[in-house]
């Protein structure tokens, strides 16, 4: 019985049917009735030919998108971890920006480490990027000797387990050509610039504050949070590549909100899932209700080529087949010149081209045509040539 429906109903549905009816005794008639109904339900659920799913998806995002106004409500989170939300974040995702405004990670740890707070805190502090300003209690400019004197915060240094040599080494690396001296048994660091001007000394002071000392670069904040019965480290700033190298980190679950980093480390399917996940987060957060299939459709479109393409003129829109469609979106001159150079043809197969030409768009009522069998060529009475097409 089932074999008859193999072509009509997709395999997963049939499998599910078999699983459900395994323990029930059904007569042939009942089975037939069920399968007929299943087939009908399935065909009803399918999208009809000529349905413009692209526009429907676009409108499904566009209309609620207009309600996501006012910048004030687009940022959330505590002082530690700030996250961009709302319309700016949605634009960021769909434009496929390489650098996003608030990169963040969710770092999972291996079983051995994840259940203890101390371990989690320890790993968190190792991951966090430490800058020079954080281990200095006060900066002052010595106007007489034209140098910057930095009093070190011993407590912080001890907490972060940094050695004195590491500090000088990092400073030498971060501030090239500057004389770095450790004085008073490692209590003070003196930075002497080459320049004799007060302005440059002030600049050096500001620059020294930002020198990278320790940790994973790019990760500005860490926050161990308990999720279920394990500790997860949330971060502001991201560096997926370096973080998963740490042996404590569970690389199979650790995530990042930057699509490109996900693609680089885990591959294109992970990037697709990240797009869906991130877009869904924004939409749910705003209390809107957009069907997940719309998001999946966009994510599929963005990642279909094996790499990530944004919905911009350099991404998906730039790859449209029709010259007129591309020209009507952005930078028309560029597209028209390029098209004319290679003699591109426009087959008027999509919507915008046909709107421009005032022809019926090949969708919905414009899709089906009247099929007439021609007995011969249509003759024009006057000229005898075939004319009046369309």
């Amino acid at each position, binding site marked *: 019985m089932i074999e008859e429906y193999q072509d009509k109903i997709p395999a997963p549905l049939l499998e599910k049917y078999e699983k459900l009816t395994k323990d029930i005794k059904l007569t042939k008639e009942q089975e037939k009735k069920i399968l007929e109904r299943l087939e009908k339900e399935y065909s009803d659920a399918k999208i009809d030919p000529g349905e413009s799913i692209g526009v429907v998806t676009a*409108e499904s995002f566009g209309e609620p998108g207009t309600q996501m106004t006012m910048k004030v409500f687009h940022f959330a989170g505590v002082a530690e971890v700030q996250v961009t939300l709302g319309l700016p974040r949605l634009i960021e995702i769909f434009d496929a920006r390489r650098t996003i405004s608030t990169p963040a990670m969710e770092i999972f740890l291996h079983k051995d480490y994840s259940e203890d707070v101390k371990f989690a805190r320890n790993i968190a502090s190792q991951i966090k990027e430490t800058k020079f300003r954080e281990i200095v209690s006060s900066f002052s400019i010595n106007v007489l000797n034209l140098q910057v004197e930095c009093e070190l915060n011993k407590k912080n240094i001890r907490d972060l387990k940094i050695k004195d040599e590491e500090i000088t080494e990092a400073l030498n690396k971060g501030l090239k050509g500057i004389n770095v001296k450790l004085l008073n048994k490692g209590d003070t660091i003196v930075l002497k610039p080459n320049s004799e001007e007060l302005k440059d000394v002030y600049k050096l002071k500001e620059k020294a504050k930002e020198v990278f000392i320790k940790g994973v670069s790019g990760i500005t904040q860490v926050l161990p949070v308990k999720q279920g019965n394990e500790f997860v480290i949330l971060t502001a700033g991201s560096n997926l590549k370096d973080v998963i190298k740490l042996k404590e980190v569970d690389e199979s679950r650790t995530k990042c909100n930057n699509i490109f980093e996900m693609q680089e480390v885990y591959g294109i399917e992970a990037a697709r899932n990240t797009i869906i996940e991130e877009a869904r987060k924004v939409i749910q957060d705003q209390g809107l209700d957009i069907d997940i299939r719309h998001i999946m459709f966009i994510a599929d479109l963005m990642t279909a080529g094996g790499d990530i393409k944004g919905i911009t003129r350099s991404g998906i829109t730039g790859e449209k087949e029709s010259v007129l469609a591309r020209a009507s979106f952005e930078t028309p001159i560029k597209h028209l010149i390029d098209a004319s150079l290679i003699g591109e043809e426009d087959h008027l197969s999509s919507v915008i081209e046909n709107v421009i030409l005032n022809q019926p768009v090949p969708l919905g009522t414009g899709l089906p045509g009247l099929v*007439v069998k021609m007995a011969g060529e249509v003759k024009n009475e006057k000229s005898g040539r075939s004319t009046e*097409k369309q």
Partner: protein
Amino acid sequence: MTDLFLNEKYIGEVDNSKSFLENLKAERRAGKLPGNLNIFYDDSCDEIYLDSSKGRARRPLIIVENGQSLLTNEHMEKLKKNEMKWSDLVKEGIIEYIDASEEENLYVALKEEEITKEHTHLEIDPIVILGLTASLVPFSNCVQSSRLNRGQKTQKQSLALYLANYHLRNDTDVNLLHYPQAPIVRSFMHDVSKFDEHPGGQNVVVALMSYKGYNMQDSLIINKASIERGFARSTFFRPYISEELRYQGGLVDEIGVPDKEVKGYKSEEDYKYLESDGIIYPEAKVEREQVLIGKTSPPRFLGDMEEFTLAASTRREASTTIRHGERGVVDMVILTENEEGNRLVVAKVRDERVPEVGDKFATRHGQKGVVGAIVPSPDMPFTASGLIPDIIFSPHSVPSRMSISHLMELLAGKVGALSGRQIDATTFAGEKEEDLRKELLSLGFKENGTEKLYNGITGEEYEATIFVGNQYYMKLKYMVANKLHARASGRIQLLTRQPIEGRAKGGGMRLGEMEKDCFVAHGASLLLKERFDSDKTRLHVCESCGLFAVSDDYRGRKFCQRCGSNVEITTIELSYAFKLLLDELKSLGFYPKLKLKSKYTD
């Protein structure tokens, strides 16, 4: 060590920032440092910013020392007797001007009673935190700030008696409210700004109830009898100006009834109100783009012969007509000369605007709405004493917006109207709600302002008690008469052959990109094509070169200018805009080639 900046330049360091700041401020108050020097200490990065640059907004505050305001009763007495001036207070270091950044370091008390040891300054009055229009909102301390914002905005759009000498002036776009009234519920800023000399609204009786659904979604219902008694009537004035310009070669414009020979002559009907001097007479009723001031201009380009034979037939019609879609009565005609000595004629047209469905009204609390229905007074609900409300306001407009001040005004307005006095509703200092309630009770009404109302149609008593009160209502300058627009066919643009834009010119209704998307999403492809048909044309295409061919209908032949007549030429239907695009591409050196294919064969 604290970094020190003067006008955003690094100038050095300070050891003891606290005493440094104190000294600096003391010296400024003593007059040793310029008064426009503002000092700001940024404690997040331990930096001091001194600023004496131009273009900062600064405001005065009273200085507080050791929990005592420096402005004493002694000073107040002197000020009252005119022995002291504002500038003296500033000089003596009692009041100082603070800029935005210095304000960050201060602890400012709103009222004198609030002052503690920590306070550094005192506001001159709590109301100064608001601007002029915001302080005109009654009980504005009882409303959400964003509502207050909208409430003060609508006041600027209200029709009013804007000037008493309006009949002598020729302001453009002027609306004048008939029978304006001073508000019953008012703030002291109404007195300060002399609001009663140019009031912008009327006190009306408002009932908070729904009525047959005609006041849903912020719309409101007006009693027809109120309108007939003159409620919210206004007059719209528009001056039309025409000037006799002089051109090169001694040619001049001529104001007068245009000759029938003139180029662009309108119909005789259009000129019928003009007197022999070509100017309309006052009190003439004009409509339908009729001419107010007749004028002819010399031709734009003079041919060789025409220069000598300046016949009327070569002159152009240049009359001033009433604007498209407007009407009115000529109020005043002025004949004068301008600075260049040219004759100038101004005809001012007035139009009485009676409130109609679609006109916009608002209270002073951001509760704006459009008239949903005008109900004859017999059908309106009435109170036990036979009072019929002027306006029925939807109660659903209040809870979500939390405009408590709106309700307070209704209550206060009722007390004011019954006791015949004006109610002080100044922000932070208005009369107490409790006292108003008590007074209302003593006046013989329920203390919460509700009353039993009776259905005007059936005469039945409503089950619910209805909140009825008096309120100051404003008619806003947005009226349907200025918005109404429809078009079937009409003028088109020369370049694109698409309908022109704009209501004033009788333009078309644009079906924009998003509207187009909507048609596409519904799959209404053929309807979409029909909607975009406005500029369709029949074009002839040469099938050998793909360019447009010529059809000589006179000789009945078609030919291609490039390939001659021995080619196949097909007629197609396209939008003119696309033809224009192809022409523009050709002018840029592109070769857009059309390849035709029949939809029906193959």
